[in-house]
């Protein structure tokens, strides 16, 4: 088993020798760390075994954080451009300025914009240091802008994964219950085998599960981090997972008939009666959806009938219309997804589809129970999970839903061994009961999340309206991040949709927007249109060419954060074990003129006269109560605000000083928190009744502006729908490209880290293009050849090909976001491939439901002759 060595904190360290607890922020795994300092110099970073987040482990990036901190290329002083001309590779002519000069200029602009319309300010951040979001969560609303985006991270993240996981599991994503799962199906996910959510905790749990005998089947175009450790790798054509998952659902429902009927009756909207117009048949008095009560042979509101008596099949006359339970409509709908049809779409043989489904169905052990810590619970030791790979396509929403439907059909949802939303329920901090949350029934009895990573949860949805947000999320109400911050259509659309303002100023926090969203020319155009950009950065990167004032950030080893692992739906491992509360604190002294960015934001709020608004926002964001609330326009340091947050949650005895010393506190989870589903009387939608009407409402607004909503994406029943790349039939365009998150790198940031760069150079995949050996040989290519990929729109990238059996014959796999060209990142410059150069940022390439960007493309490959 994966035992962790005891903590390295020693009772009496030699003079000048200390281990300081904090949190890694080099990805959103947010592992708890211990930093070893000798005579004031940080010399080593290890995992903190006292914490459940990371469980004492670090990945290669976490260990290498020192190299980022001590990199001589770091920005250490505020700087202002002297060259007004902005463009790729044009020297901004940087000059050093004082903090006062920098803040006065930025605050002056903020004041002017705030007086006109605060929404003219947009804020972009990176997910690389995502836990630094709290000061921004107060700064932006205090200022009054609603235009906050997550750079490329947001667009390239699990936009649909989060939305659908929220609707079906009250969580930000899904995982197998590693401790009890016996059969895990992975679709385009690497959970427990690579970067990302709770990655180090999950890696330990996944390794233990495999050792215990959990069978793991990975469906992915590439046999990399997860598939390499799986029992079986199922190569699939890029972007077609929904066709496979729906064929498996069809086999479950219509060939095997292996269904958890009580679960479907009690926990889904499967019994809700659907009329001829596709909508719920509702109770005339209460307007609640009706179900058919088989005991009394009448229709009753869903919240009146007993679940046990609800019909899942049949045809009934109610309120003068003929209606059927939504479950039977789904079951019939699935029939078109025969394994033979799916084989054509996905290249996965029909017999394999049937075999995998039968294995999954058998392992789900429908009807069984198990006792955990004295509590009897449903036992479903099978899980189908998915993440970013599967949902980085135009059909993002349905791709994800199709996979999660597998779990719904067999009742493998948030019970022992099953697919889990991680930490959807939390009873609160034991001593104070604070911060607790539970999923609950909302309108129509459908589940509302207990907590969420954004302020608008996935359900219930607001009505679409004429947009006033730059990203149009108030029109596309199921969207979270949006391509319209930087899109090709942006200005034209804003004009047609009568947007009452235009963006004028951007404050960027660590996002390298030029690289992290889509092709650089398009992003450059969008950045050039802004009057002013201020950016907190560690390095002069590709985006710096467009920035007016650069502010030196202290980085994750120099900042405070009281909630690096909260909310738990994002950052805690699934399953039984502990809750941990860690903090992040400065472990190194500032170098040069670096400042804690949160204090800089507070300074800006003071100089631009919105400190009382920012204090009110801090009160709201942290939910500060009583004497911990920030008062009026009094100026607080961020350290004081952190202290207030901790005392507010943990009591006066456990403020910042307590946590600085302890670093982390832990307490045990209960089975009712972890396996919450049977205890919670809320249903999840397997039939998305609201979708067609929502689509029509959006079309009524967006259509006249030129965004025609393809209604097939707004169907109540989940479908496979192809990407633009699947429809590209140009001669010789015969490869599908995709990129994946390398375990050695986070976004486009870590390539500047010398240790990680060295490791990546030893890895045959990190900086090369993976191509199937036979496919390469057929085209006369040899391993190491320089090749060019070109899209139908003429976008091109070059890189060296690595021939391997570990990739689907039609796939081209590219790791991470490399290919830097900025001189300020000399370690990274020129290494690897800038994948995003291939990507468009337009309506044709986003999911019309939640605006997820399609990250695949169809390309033609040619060898580049070298002298």
């Amino acid at each position, binding site marked *: 088993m994966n035992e962790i060595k005891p903590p390295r904190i020693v009772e009496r360290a030699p003079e000048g020798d200390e281990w300081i607890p904090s949190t890694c922020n080099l990805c959103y795994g947010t592992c708890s760390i211990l930093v070893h300092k000798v005579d004031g110099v940080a010399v080593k970073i290890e995992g903190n075994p006292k914490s459940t987040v990371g469980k004492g482990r670090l990945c290669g990036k976490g260990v290498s954080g020192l190299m980022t901190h001590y990199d001589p290329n770091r920005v250490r002083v505020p700087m202002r451009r002297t060259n007004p001309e902005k463009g790729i590779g044009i020297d901004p002519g940087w000059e050093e300025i004082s903090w006062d000069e920098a803040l006065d200029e930025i605050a002056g602009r903020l004041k002017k914009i705030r007086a006109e319309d605060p929404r003219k300010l947009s804020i972009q951040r990176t997910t690389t240091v995502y836990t630094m979001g709290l000061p921004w969560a107060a700064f932006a*609303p205090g200022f009054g802008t609603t235009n906050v985006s997550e750079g490329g991270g947001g667009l390239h993240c699990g936009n649909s994964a989060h939305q659908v996981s929220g609707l079906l599991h009250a969580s930000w994503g899904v995982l197998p219950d590693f401790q009890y799962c016996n059969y895990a199906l992975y679709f385009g996910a690497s959970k427990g085998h690579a970067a990302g959510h709770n990655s180090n905790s999950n890696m330990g749990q996944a390794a233990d599960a495999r050792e215990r005998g959990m069978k793991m089947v990975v469906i992915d175009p590439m046999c990399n981090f997860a598939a390499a450790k799986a029992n079986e790798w199922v190569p699939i054509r890029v972007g077609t997972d929904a066709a496979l998952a729906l064929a498996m659902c069809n086999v479950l429902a219509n060939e095997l008939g292996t269904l958890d009927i*009580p679960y479907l009756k*009690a926990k889904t909207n499967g019994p809700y009666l659907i009329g001829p117009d596709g909508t719920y048949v509702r109770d005339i008095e209460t307007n609640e959806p009706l179900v058919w009560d088989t005991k009394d042979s009448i229709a009753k509101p869903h919240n009146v009938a007993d679940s046990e008596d609800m019909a899942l099949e049949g045809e009934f006359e109610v309120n003068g219309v003929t209606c059927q339970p939504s479950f039977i409509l789904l079951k019939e709908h699935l029939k078109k997804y025969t394994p033979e049809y799916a084989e054509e779409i996905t290249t996965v043989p029909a017999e394999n589809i049937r075999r995998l489904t039968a294995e999954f169905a058998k392992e789900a052990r429908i*009807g069984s129970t198990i006792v955990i810590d004295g509590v009897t619970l449903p036992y479903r030791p099978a899980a189908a999970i998915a993440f970013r790979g599967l949902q980085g396509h135009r059909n993002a929403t349905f791709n994800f839903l199709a996979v999660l439907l597998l779990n719904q059909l067999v009742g493998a949802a948030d019970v022992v061994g099953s697919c889990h939303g991680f930490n959807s329920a939390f009873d609160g901090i034991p001593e104070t009961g604070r911060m607790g949350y539970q999923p*609950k029934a909302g309108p129509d009895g459908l589940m509302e999340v207990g907590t969420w990573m*954004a302020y608008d949860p996935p359900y219930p949805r607001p009505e679409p309206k004429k947009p*006033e947000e730059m990203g149009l999320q108030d029109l596309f109400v199921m969207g979270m991040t949006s391509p319209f911050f930087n899109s090709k259509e942006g200005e034209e659309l804003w004009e047609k949709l009568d947007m009452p303002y235009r963006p004028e100023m951007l404050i960027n926090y660590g996002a390298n927007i030029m690289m992290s969203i889509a092709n650089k020319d398009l992003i450059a155009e969008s950045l050039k249109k802004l009057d002013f950009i201020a950016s907190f950065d560690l390095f002069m990167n590709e985006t710096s060419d467009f920035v007016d004032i650069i502010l030196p950030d202290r980085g994750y080893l120099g900042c405070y954060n009281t909630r690096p692992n909260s909310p738990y739906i994002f950052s805690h491992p699934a399953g039984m074990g502990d809750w941990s509360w860690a903090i992040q604190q400065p472990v190194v002294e500032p170098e040069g003129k670096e400042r804690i960015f949160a204090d800089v934001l507070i300074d800006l709020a003071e100089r631009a006269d919105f400190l009382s608004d920012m204090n009110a926002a801090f009160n709201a964001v942290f939910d500060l109560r009583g004497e911990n609330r920030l008062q009026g326009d009094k100026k607080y340091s961020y350290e004081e605000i952190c202290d207030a947050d901790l005392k507010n949650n943990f009591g006066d005895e456990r403020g910042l000083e307590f946590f600085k010393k302890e670093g982390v506190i832990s307490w045990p989870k209960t089975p009712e928190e972890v396996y919450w589903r049977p205890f919670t*009387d809320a249903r999840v939608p397997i039939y998305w009744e609201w979708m067609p009407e929502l689509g029509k409402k959006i079309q009524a607004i967006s259509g006249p502006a030129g965004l025609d909503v393809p209604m097939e994406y707004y169907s109540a029943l989940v479908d496979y729908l192809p990407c633009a790349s699947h429809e590209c039939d140009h001669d010789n365009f015969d490869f599908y490209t995709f990129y994946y998150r390398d375990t050695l790198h986070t976004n486009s940031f870590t390539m500047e880290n010398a240790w990680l760069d060295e490791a990546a150079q030893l890895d045959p995949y990190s900086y090369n293009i993976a191509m199937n050996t036979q496919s390469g040989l057929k085209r006369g290519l040899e391993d190491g050849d320089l090749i060019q990929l070109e899209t139908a729109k003429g976008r091109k990238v070059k890189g060296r090909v690595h021939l391997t059996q570990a990739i689907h014959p039609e796939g081209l796999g590219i790791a991470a976001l490399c290919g830097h060209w900025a001189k300020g990142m000399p370690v990274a410059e020129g290494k690897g491939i800038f994948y995003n150069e291939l990507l468009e940022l337009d309506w044709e390439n986003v999911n019309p439901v939640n605006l997820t960007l399609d990250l695949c493309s169809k390309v033609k490959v040619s060898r580049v002759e070298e002298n």
Partner: protein
Amino acid sequence: MGETPAPELEIEEDRSAVLWYSAERNAAEKPAETAESENSGTTISIDVLLFGLLSAVTTESPISLSLPSTATPLDVVAALEDRFGADSFAQIKDPNIGILTCCRLFVNGEPFEDPYAPISPDGLAGTIEMIILKGFEGG
């Protein structure tokens, strides 16, 4: 009109069915009796503090309102719209949700979630703070 029989289970006894059917926590609301509030008919003073984007509506702060003791946050918004213009709060109102979740409400310093619930069930004066929070974490 009949129901298709449910598929047979492969195990002899479905032991988990009773667990699925017995949920109690956070149950969907049953139709409730409406009760007359003790304080209905009286009025209360409410001070409104608007922050961030909402503060652009007026420089007046706090905004003092006199409302029926049964007033809800939606009634407060309606009263503000009467005073400052019909569309001044359009960005936070929603026919499905009442007041959008991103608009956080605090009554006397305590968070207040339900836009349809009386702000002051005890009929006492109070302060309501309103601020729009926006933001998102990707991953």
